[in-house]
């Protein structure tokens, strides 16, 4: 009996300790490249690439500062993750998981993805009890050149400037190649503090801790921990608590540091004045119950705004956009405040 128990223990330890091959978040992205891998040629052309990342399908070759690769990358991703999900179960265009649960791991068939969607999303921002598919009211604009990155840079740099604009790509946040020996939540990049601003492919071999500038932005970036481990077992779809809110208990506290790879000035450990003219007082974002994703979704939301919330101006003073200016909040109006700040 003891021998059996020891064998079992050794086996379990070996499973935990030994490096094991694994697909990135169970996706088609190779996590186990080998010396004879065939996978590169599926998306890349060594001598005939149409984009800076040598992607096979990119047309626009204009590489902008701070941009990883060009503006049509999303077309490649939508070849599998689009509304028809012809090569994946995660339809990020509609924010829907397109398959059945498997052992309770992967989510309810046809349920909404946690991140919402880029065109439509299946959510329940008004607590109707029934998630409804509808066009999104706000989203992270992927592939659109020159989008403002709110909060990019260190505190005190003043208002938004041209250097705080970027073209967001799918691979700005996700590592399409997966991770060979590590599970990362949604294959999120763990080099985001650098990749958020720099073309990693171009800078490879030239970036090092020793050569890193000593300004506050780079020092903060160096401190951020953006290696977000995957949850086990993985679960893709929104789960709701009995009171109708999203269950966010799965969230890792470090997800706020991950978001701060771009939205640096929003990262706040307390409510003391930051000394920043624009973001002077900030909601705390560094506790598990206060991560960015407690209030926001990553891709797009169907929430709608009311008279006050729709008119809130943007950090650069631009007037709010009205009912559709939902700013990736997952509850309509300012309902995200209510769970922690209920009416007296």
């Amino acid at each position, binding site marked *: 009996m003891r021998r059996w128990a020891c064998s079992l223990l050794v086996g379990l330890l070996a499973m935990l300790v030994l490096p094991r091959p694994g697909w990135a978040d169970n996706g*088609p992205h190779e996590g186990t490249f080998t010396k004879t891998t*065939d996978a590169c*040629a*599926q*998306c890349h052309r060594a001598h005939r690439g*149409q984009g800076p990342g040598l992607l*096979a*399908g990119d*047309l626009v070759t204009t590489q902008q500062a701070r941009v990883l690769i060009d503006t*049509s990358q999303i*077309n*490649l991703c939508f*070849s*599998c993750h*689009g*509304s*028809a*999900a*012809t*090569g*994946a*179960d995660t*339809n990020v265009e*509609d924010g*829907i998981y*397109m*398959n*059945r649960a*498997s052992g309770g791991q*992967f989510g309810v*068939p*046809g349920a909404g993805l946690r991140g919402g969607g880029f*065109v*439509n999303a*299946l959510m329940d921002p008004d607590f109707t009890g029934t998630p409804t*598919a*509808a*066009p999104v009211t706000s989203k992270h604009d992927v592939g659109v050149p020159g989008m403002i990155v709110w909060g990019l840079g260190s505190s005190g740099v003043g208002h938004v400037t041209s250097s705080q604009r970027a073209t967001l790509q799918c691979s700005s946040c996700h590592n399409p190649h997966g991770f060979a020996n590590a599970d990362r939540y949604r294959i999120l990049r763990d080099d985001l503090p650098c990749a958020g601003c720099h073309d990693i492919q171009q800078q490879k071999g030239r970036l090092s801790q020793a050569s890193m500038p000593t300004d506050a932005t780079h020092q903060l970036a160096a401190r951020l921990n953006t290696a977000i481990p995957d949850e086990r077992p993985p679960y893709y779809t929104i789960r709701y608590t009995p009171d109708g809110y999203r269950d966010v208990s799965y969230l890792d506290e470090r997800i706020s540091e991950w978001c701060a790879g771009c939205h640096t000035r929003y990262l706040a450990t307390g409510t003391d004045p930051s000394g920043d003219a624009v973001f002077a007082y900030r909601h705390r974002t560094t506790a598990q119950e206060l991560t960015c994703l407690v209030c926001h979704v990553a891709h797009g939301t169907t929430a709608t705004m009311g008279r006050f919330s729709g008119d809130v101006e943007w950090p650069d003073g631009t007037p709010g956009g009205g009912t559709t200016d939902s700013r990736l909040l997952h509850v309509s109006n300012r309902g995200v405040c209510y769970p922690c700040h209920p009416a007296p």
Partner: protein
Amino acid sequence: MSDKVKGPERSAISNTRQRKWARRRLIALGALFLLLVLVAGLWAYYLRTRKPLSAALPPAPAVAQAFKPHYLFSIYGVDRPLGIALSPDGRYIYVTESAGERLIKVFDREGQFIRSFAVPDTRPAERAPVYVAVDSYGRVYVTDRRRFALYVFDADGNLLRVFSPPQGEEFWTPLGVNVVNDEILVTEVTREQHRVMVFDLEGRLKTVFGREGRENGEFWFPNAVVRDEEGNFYVSDGNNGRLQVLDPEGNFLYALRGLNLPRGLAIDTEKRLFLVDAVAHQVRVFSLASQPIVALYEFGDIGMGDGEFRYPNDIAVDLTGRLYITDRENNRIQVWSY
């Protein structure tokens, strides 16, 4: 005077004639015998050295197969089209959209819009038509990934029925659909059981094979399946980047690897297999005149000009040699011809 031949002379003449006839019969019999020997010899030679005609002579389709098609025109007015199929007489083109209103649109072969339809009582965000096929009666089969369903419409777009999951299964995820010889070929991508299913026109399951994986005979998001005259299956094994060939029972025969993202398939009357490679932005053409099949050529390249593709997805071919290809990111259907 000479009309009257006497008895002995007459007898001599008769004998001479008989000898001549006998000699002629002998010669004829000898010739027949020689002919028989010759035929027997040739037959024996044929039996010893016989070869299939296709091996002895170039196959008839090879002449036609050598030519590449040329671009004709494009049909616009579709929003990120994915699947495409033709009516039995080739007069109408059915196309599925993956953006905008997400309709099934019908055009005539000159590109004139005829009508559109969708799954009844659904909004665009609630549907995702993917692939389309038409049977010999003109009924239109549409897979809807969002609704986990295979719908059957009449030619005018009226919903006739919804295919149910196979008996004993509560859930399925049909993706690709084709109708070949009154059989409905479906690729199904429920997690862990990516497979090919064959139904009769009444919806009875006849054959099923495959499962999710990377090994031979396994699939990873198979997008299309077609059959040749011998009944072999050709499956575009999307995420595995290969075309798998299986015998009529669904047993793995061989695979053509190194494809980028194989999607739509079609076979024409000249024994050509057309494979749409979405990420290569090309249509790859193979000859089915022999096994294993042989790559002939590919056509198309990335771009927005005439004859250029941006993420093509599916193909249909008519009896006149016209090819209809959905050009997803260019929001059009390209028409090519031989």
